[in-house]
């Protein structure tokens, strides 16, 4: 029984239905419509994302090569990977690459956004914006093909210009430091447009009257940046670094194409390890354990970033 009785029954309701039941029937019909409309996306989310997360945790407890039947091994996979040099080294390599990539991406993206915002002419702003955005349109895999030619030690354009400037030619793809730097540079080059666009939008949303007031009070451009602009765009800085770090921790296309993880294991990222363990060595259980570990690390990093950010992110 409904406790709320409408003052006036809707004129469309049937003669025998009381106002309460007809309203309930309408609500039920609306709900059915809602479920139907949301169903396809919900099925996809459950089958292809939520389900697989749970399945990863379960698979991680098995030893399975997909051909013979899976064997339950409990937490053995996790004990093994704690002592697996390949995995621990790859996590360190990936974290190092990711931190370098994100720091450069956020720093350069913000710097360029600040400079572009100063340009008065709309044409200049459009030209620079398009230029910085261009790499985002290319596929990381095919751009990595181009880059492996440019970074070639003997025939590459980059070393040609370095020698022209009387600098030593760098063994970009064949030394540990060189390969690391190459991966970082290529990833930053490609993703710069993303942080740049975010910061352009965030700076554009800073209320001009606040800046004007500060200027009238005699604030220098440097103070204006540190005291007003940066605090106001700090949520965007947080977002760009969280998303950037999550993406960079999954680096795959660039090392797969340019270095295959080498030289040695210098650029052997964790997703490369997962790929090789699962799809080449057919150790699906063990590979799941590695990807579960990566998933938990990403969760932890995100949680830490949000916790630490309470101290410096300003939400108006």
């Amino acid at each position, binding site marked *: 029984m409904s406790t709320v009785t409408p003052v006036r029954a809707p004129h469309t309701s049937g003669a025998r239905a009381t106002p309460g039941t007809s309203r309930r029937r309408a609500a039920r019909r609306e709900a059915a419509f809602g479920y139907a409309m949301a169903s396809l*996306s919900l099925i*996809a989310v459950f089958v292809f994302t939520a389900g*697989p997360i749970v399945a990863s945790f379960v*698979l991680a407890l098995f030893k399975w090569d997909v051909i013979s039947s899976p064997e339950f091994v409990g937490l053995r996979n996790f004990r093994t990977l704690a002592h697996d040099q390949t995995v621990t080294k790859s996590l360190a390599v990936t974290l190092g690459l990711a931190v370098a990539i994100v720091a450069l991406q956020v720093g350069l993206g913000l710097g360029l956004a600040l400079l572009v915002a*100063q340009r008065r002419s709309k044409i200049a702003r459009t030209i620079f914006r398009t230029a910085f955005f261009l790499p985002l349109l290319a596929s990381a*895999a095919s751009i990595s*093909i181009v880059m492996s*030619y440019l970074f070639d030690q003997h025939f590459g354009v980059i070393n040609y210009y370095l020698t022209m400037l009387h600098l030593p030619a760098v063994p970009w793809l064949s030394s540990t430091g060189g390969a690391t730097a190459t991966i970082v540079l290529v990833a930053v080059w490609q993703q710069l447009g993303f942080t740049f666009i975010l910061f352009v939008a965030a700076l554009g949303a800073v209320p001009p009257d606040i800046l004007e007031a500060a200027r009238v009070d005699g604030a220098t451009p440097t103070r204006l940046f540190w005291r007003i602009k940066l605090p106001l765009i700090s949520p965007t800085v947080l977002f760009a670094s969280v998303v950037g770090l999550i993406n960079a921790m*999954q680096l795959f296309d660039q090392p797969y194409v340019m270095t295959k993880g080498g030289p040695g294991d210098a650029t052997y990222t964790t997703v490369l390890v997962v790929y090789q363990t699962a799809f080449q060595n057919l150790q699906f259980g063990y590979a799941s354990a590695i*990807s579960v570990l990566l998933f938990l690390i990403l969760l932890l990093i995100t949680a830490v970033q949000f916790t630490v950010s309470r101290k410096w992110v300003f939400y108006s």
Partner: protein
Amino acid sequence: MSRIRAALSVLVLTVAALLVVAPIAWAVSTSLRTPASSFDLPPHWIPTHPVWSNYRDAFEKVPLATFIGNSVVVTGLIVAGQLITSTMSGYAFAMVRFRGQKALFAIILATMMVPLQTTIIPVFLLIRYFGLTDSRLSLVLPAVAGAFGTFLMRQYFLQMPRELGEAARVDGASHWQVFSRIYARMAFAPMATLAVLTYAAYWNEFFRPLIFLQTSSKFTLPLGLVSLRGYFGTGSVSIVLAGVVIALIPSVLIFAAAQRYFVEGIVAGSFR
């Protein structure tokens, strides 16, 4: 003083822009040279005597047309699927009342941040279970609906006036009619945003094709290009580069036509 600053800032921006564009410019100019002069140093940045044979060879000697066809079909189906499913579910979560709505949307938000790479093994096993390995459908099926599209469309529907739909309901329109005749037609901008973002993500995708596909006649462009490089070695750099440039052309055209939607989509994603 301020004039020096301004000149300096233009200089920094110009150098940065040139550095960013240079790799793509090199790919374009090298794809327009004969294979023999691919590695000429100093590099010729401006192709004064463009040679189009690499583009012809990319179609005649190398199955580039097949890769393009596969990419067009796969990306096209995913974009179409995303537009239909996300518009419907985004509308449901913004405008329709049903039980469990909040909980279900919370699950969608939570999965939005889950990286594809950490779920790839179970997804691969599912694809294998469905008997879809080495098929183009294996790329399409898991991608035609999802969390991000739902989230994006919901954001836009939330901003639309509810009164329109309520008035239409009083006049006897069904729930479906309110959606299809009123709100869906007001959603052109968010649908364009979703379309360009989905296009960019799947046109350039490498990871899933690498894992799901085995036969080169099913390869999409990025996977096909990478496989060509391995197959031909360095001998046909210029043909591979022609392929890279061709792959980039539709993206540049779409960006030129719909720049606003690209930017809007990226920024909309950051206000979550």
